[in-house]
């Protein structure tokens, strides 16, 4: 394979075959921090950090980093010893690495040296310390009696400071997690999250599957982002196997992804109304969302579009008459959303609650690595559909929505803008749909191939990094949700706000638990 020189860094890399621009390089422990300092200085963000067990391939362990450079995704691999695998922590350079490093230790026993935060993250009581479920020698069915689960939350001391523990079972219909608030009066002084209650062994399950079987699981990493994950997974498998999906399938995938974005924003905008006592908004937006879901169910056989994107293409075509029904429905929804937006914009009560609530300023967003629409609402101008415009977005052209105030109102505004843009995109994509097949047969895969799937889901960038084993099986599939980056910023966004505004701020981000817990 030809060598590729990443212009931003003095580094020799190999291209990773696939739809998105990606390069791979091996680095030594001594170079890791220096490289990260360089990429940080160039404003390259850390997309993901994970580990792998290489003992079945004659090695020890490995640490992996995915960094978003101007020219594409840089996948760095740091080989580690079989005994006491360890590497220098990079959490001081990229703060979002902290939880990922802790998760990597809990799952693989790979130790981040010199990190001040060595607390567990994924491990609660399901398995004892010193046992590492993602190691190859660990059988997936092993179960242990519940172990002790002490977790040292950071204590805030001072006069009049109270703690409010919330969850894991929440008051509303949301996923489980634990929030520890330290408050004075009604004001939030500190919020500390504890997640991973929904850890269900997804990455271990992948390693017991074939490349084809993994698609269904990828679509269930986070149910509200099923298209984004299924596409990222398909992209990674296609890269690893050298399969070229037909261009009609690419157009259809983008239509599905934009529909997923529209449906999620419709639902959340309804809830954001509900959270400021405007239940009118909830009923109106959920009526529109249901109108869309019903048609999706009719056209694609699944209201949330699960299992539509498959390695090699898509499961169902969208014939012309059906596409027209879809466009007509979207047009009706759009005209109603325009009316609802005017009502939200003019509603003094709603705006009073939205404006300057849950603010994340651009500087903090940049430092901590906020991503997705929440990042764009805090001045972080990144969107994979714009930064690396591969087909079909290259043809359709995406107009990025941004804001700088970083409060609930900004996130509401960006959500409206992105929804309108998605409606425009569906129209354009539908008119540009190429004729022909919707699915290509999946080529066989040789062991040791890698693939990258990188997709701008409605919440932010979703990454699948994949390596194949023999017999078309999966050696390692890492799924990364943008919520990893954004959860720590929710802790910051609530500071100085009052406790009753927490549900509103939380909903304005609407982060995934299942996607980060895996």
């Amino acid at each position: 394979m030809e060598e590729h020189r990443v212009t931003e860094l003095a580094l020799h890399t190999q291209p990773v075959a696939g739809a998105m621009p990606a390069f791979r390089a091996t680095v030594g422990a001594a170079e890791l921090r220096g490289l990260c300092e360089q990429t940080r200085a160039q404003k390259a963000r850390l997309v993901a950090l994970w580990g792998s067990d290489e003992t079945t391939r004659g090695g020890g362990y490995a640490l992996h980093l995915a960094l978003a450079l101007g020219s594409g995704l840089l996948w760095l691999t740091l080989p580690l010893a079989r005994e006491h695998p360890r590497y220098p922590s990079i959490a001081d350079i990229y703060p979002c690495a902290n939880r990922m490093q802790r998760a990597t230790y809990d799952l693989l026993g790979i130790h981040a040296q010199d990190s001040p935060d060595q607390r567990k993250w994924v491990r609660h009581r399901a398995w004892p310390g010193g046992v590492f479920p993602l190691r190859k020698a660990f059988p997936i069915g092993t179960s242990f009696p519940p172990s002790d689960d002490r977790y040292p939350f950071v204590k805030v001391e001072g006069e009049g400071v109270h703690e409010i523990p919330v969850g894991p079972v929440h008051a509303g219909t949301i996923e489980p997690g634990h929030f520890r608030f330290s408050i004075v009066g009604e004001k939030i002084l500190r919020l500390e999250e504890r997640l991973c209650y929904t850890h269900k062994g997804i990455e271990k399950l992948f390693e017991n599957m074939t490349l084809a079987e993994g698609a269904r699981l990828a679509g269930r990493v986070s149910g509200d982002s099923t298209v984004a994950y299924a596409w990222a997974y398909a992209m990674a498998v296609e890269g690893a196997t050298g399969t070229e999906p037909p261009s009609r399938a690419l157009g259809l995938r983008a239509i599905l992804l934009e529909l997923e974005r529209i449906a999620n924003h419709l639902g959340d905008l309804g809830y954001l109304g509900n959270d400021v006592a405007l239940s009118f908004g909830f009923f109106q937006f959920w009526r529109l969302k249901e109108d869309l879901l019903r048609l999706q169910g009719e056209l694609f056989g699944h209201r949330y579009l699960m299992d539509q994107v498959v390695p090699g293409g898509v499961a169902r075509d969208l014939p012309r008459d059906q596409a027209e029904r879809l466009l007509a429905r979207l047009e009706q929804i759009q005209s109603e959303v325009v009316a609802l937006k005017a009502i939200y914009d003019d509603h003094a009560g709603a705006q009073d609650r939205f404006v300057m609530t849950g603010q994340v300023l651009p500087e903090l967003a940049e430092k901590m690595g906020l991503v997705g629409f929440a990042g764009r609402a805090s001045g972080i101008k990144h969107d994979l559909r714009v930064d690396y415009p591969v087909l079909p977005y290259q043809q359709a052209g995406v107009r990025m929505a941004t804001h700088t105030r970083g409060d609930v109102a900004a996130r509401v505004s960006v959500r409206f803008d992105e929804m309108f843009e998605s409606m425009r995109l569906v129209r354009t994509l539908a008119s540009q749909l190429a004729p022909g097949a919707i699915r290509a047969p999946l080529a066989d895969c040789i062991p040791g191939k890698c693939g990258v799937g990188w997709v701008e889901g409605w919440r932010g960038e979703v990454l699948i990094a994949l390596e194949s084993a023999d017999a078309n099986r999966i050696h390692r599939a890492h799924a990364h949700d943008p919520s990893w980056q954004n959860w720590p910023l929710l802790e910051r966004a609530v500071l100085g706000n009052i406790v009753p505004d927490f549900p509103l701020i939380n909903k304005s981000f609407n982060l995934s638990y299942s996607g980060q817990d895996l």
Partner: protein
Amino acid sequence: MYRLLKQIAKTGIVSEPPPHPDETLRQIDQQLGEVILRHFGRALAIRHVDAGSCNGCELEIHSMNGPYYNLERLGIKFVASPRHADLLLVTGPVSRNMELALKRTYAATPDPKLVVAIGDCGCTGGIFGESYASSGRVSNVIPVDVAVPGCPPTPIALMQGILTAISSGGRDRA
């Protein structure tokens, strides 16, 4: 304000008739007598517990509260605490990290109580099955009255499951 009222008037009432109970969803015989069921039917309080789902099933629970299905008009509403609940609606395979919280929620729910397990995951463990991280189906952890398959089940199927849990199932227990 004028625009808001106009939108309400223009929309009108969109709620649709609810589905009928479906006995095939029932896991164990109805344990509750007519009298209790009559009361439940008029004011049922539900506590949702996500025991490890992918969040797909939650999306449809939200839909059920939307205007087309409008669960609340049947006297069925979601409450914030298990202590106020008559019925637990449980999604997901039960992750081992949620097992204790689910058991505690069940214990905190006053008797008589009903449990409806939701989704392929709630019914069988689904794609996640049983593993070091997942205890599988809900009935592996707490007793289940009614189980609703689907990935995720539609709002109509969910309503059917809930209505089945509070119907007598043809058994005269008055």
